[in-house]
């Protein structure tokens, strides 16, 4: 039932996208030439602003230190150390990415409204959807840069450790770099979906509500298979509610390859791509809704 419902909701989502695009085509088509530079400008200033926020820099240094410090668990065997480094490193990247995604996305639009910086932008020839898209693109660039840096640090640590132990007898460190990078990229896609959803919520809710909802969505999104099992065993209204949650909340666990990678298990790139394509469709629907809601918001 849930798989069919999921496909149905996905098709409905795509149909909504198609309908909105068709209906609003006349409105945005002449402005499309103008929209992209505006979106890019807003994204750039969002990135520049984040670069100057000390808190992001401080937390990032902390995460780098955590990843690097994992290198010094010398009491573990090289194989165990490899597992721990990959698992701990990817977990640090994911957790920091989620916190950052919530921190950046939940505050982005509400803060612009509270600080009234939005007035000087929306009184210029900038459409509201361009503002929302610019903010989202900015968040994607910030998250991409940070996940990228942290992945490079993790890979560097793994390579360093590999060099350190390669001469030891009876040791197979096997840093498994390709899957590590793949898992980090998949984490980034999960954050992209989560960020879009947080932005959607932030267009209608207060900052506190947005942050709270973001944590709940992250928790629920990471436990979707358990929710599916619960739904299968439930009855009546509870069953329906759980199925709705299962189908509406993004399946963030589909992007999570940490377990396979750290346990040297084979990684299914196909299922990764499936998750990415599903995530892109979901994100599109969510962003269109965010633009529609923000369009009607009084600032």
């Amino acid at each position: 039932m849930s798989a069919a419902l999921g496909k149905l909701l996905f098709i409905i989502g795509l149909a909504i996208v198609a309908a909105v695009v068709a209906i609003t085509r006349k409105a945005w088509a002449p402005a499309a030439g103008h929209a992209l530079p505006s979106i890019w400008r807003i994204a750039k200033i969002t990135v520049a602003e984040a670069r100057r926020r000390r808190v992001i820099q401080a937390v990032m240094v902390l995460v780098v230190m955590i990843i690097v410090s994992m290198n010094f668990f010398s009491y573990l065997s090289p194989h165990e150390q490899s597992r721990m480094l990959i698992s701990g490193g990817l977990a640090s990247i994911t957790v920091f990415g989620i916190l950052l995604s919530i921190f950046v996305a939940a505050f982005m639009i509400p803060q612009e409204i509270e600080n009234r910086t939005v007035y000087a932008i929306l009184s210029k020839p900038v459409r509201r959807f361009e503002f929302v898209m610019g903010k989202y693109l900015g968040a994607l660039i910030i998250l991409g840069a940070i996940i990228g840096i942290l992945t490079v640090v993790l890979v560097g640590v793994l390579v360093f450790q590999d060099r350190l132990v390669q001469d030891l007898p009876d040791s197979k460190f096997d840093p498994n770099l390709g899957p590590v990078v793949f898992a980090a990229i998949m984490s980034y896609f999960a954050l992209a979906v989560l960020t879009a959803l947080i932005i959607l919520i932030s267009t209608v809710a207060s900052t506190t509500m947005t942050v709270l909802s973001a944590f709940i969505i992250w928790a629920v999104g990471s436990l979707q298979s358990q929710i599916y099992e619960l739904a299968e065993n439930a009855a009546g209204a509870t069953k329906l509610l759980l199925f709705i949650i299962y189908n509406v909340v993004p399946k963030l666990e589909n992007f999570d390859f940490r377990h396979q990678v750290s346990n040297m298990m084979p990684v299914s790139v196909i299922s990764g791509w499936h998750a990415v394509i599903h995530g892109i469709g979901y994100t599109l629907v969510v962003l269109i809704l965010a633009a529609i809601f923000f369009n009607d918001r009084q600032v």
Partner: protein
Amino acid sequence: MSNEEAVLQVEGLTKIYRSLFTPAGVKAVDDLNLSVRRGETYSIVGPNGSGKTTTLKILLGLIFPTGGTTSIFGKGISDLSVRARIGFLPEDAYLYDCFNGEELLDFYAGLFGFSSRRRAELVEELLSLVGMQANRRVPFRECSKGMRQRLALAQALVNDPELLILDEPTSGLDPAGRHQMTRLILELKRRGKTILLCSHFLAEVEEVCDRVGIMYRGRLVAEGTLAELAGEPTEILITVTGLEGAAAEKVGGQAGVMEVRDGVVRMSKADEGQLWAVLEFIHRAGGVIVEVTRPRPTLQDVFVRAIGEEAK
């Protein structure tokens, strides 16, 4: 006034804020009608909560009206071509505080699609116009209130707008800052800009505006040029020295004289025919006439009168 002359037109504008606690709503703007002509400087004045900023926010499309219509250059504000011809200075200058003047102006100019070369030129021109060249690299959060306000005005001018909407441009500024801002507004007026201005500072409004609309409880209670609002002088004031005691009392008893106090003889404008007789009497009584004036009511007087009548 024909529509072609009007750059900005507001008809029957109403805004009601509703919330969970006020289901009936609070009327912030009530059936407002106004128009601003090309090249004029129009000011909306009114006490706090009279609906001035709400009106501006509706005009800019930041909030939406409950009723009525607004048009700028004959079109709705959702039209991008309209916003390309407008400049807006928000109250209390809210700009990104971690960027400096150069970066901010470059960003806002970029929103109009200017090339990087043109943006660089614009940044120079605008920093020079608002006198911020020396402080061009000071982050906005470290700028003084006056510097912030000048930068905010500069961002409103990046597109060389035909219509400038200024919300409390001198709010929070010290007298020197207020003077500087008033001079800038006068310069923009000299350059032919149409200006819609909201302000608490009536003296500044008197200095720069051609027409004034007085708002109270969301309604426009008086509108016109300063002369129209003030009306004709109603009295004649004769400033005199050396007129004291019994002499002053005698002058006070002359036909047409309403009052003699603190060296000033007040006559009703209706009794202007008696002026020469009174002047001669003062002279004979030993008084020295310093000046004779027919003062018009100030905007402050007009404002207080209009608000007072409405409050009744």
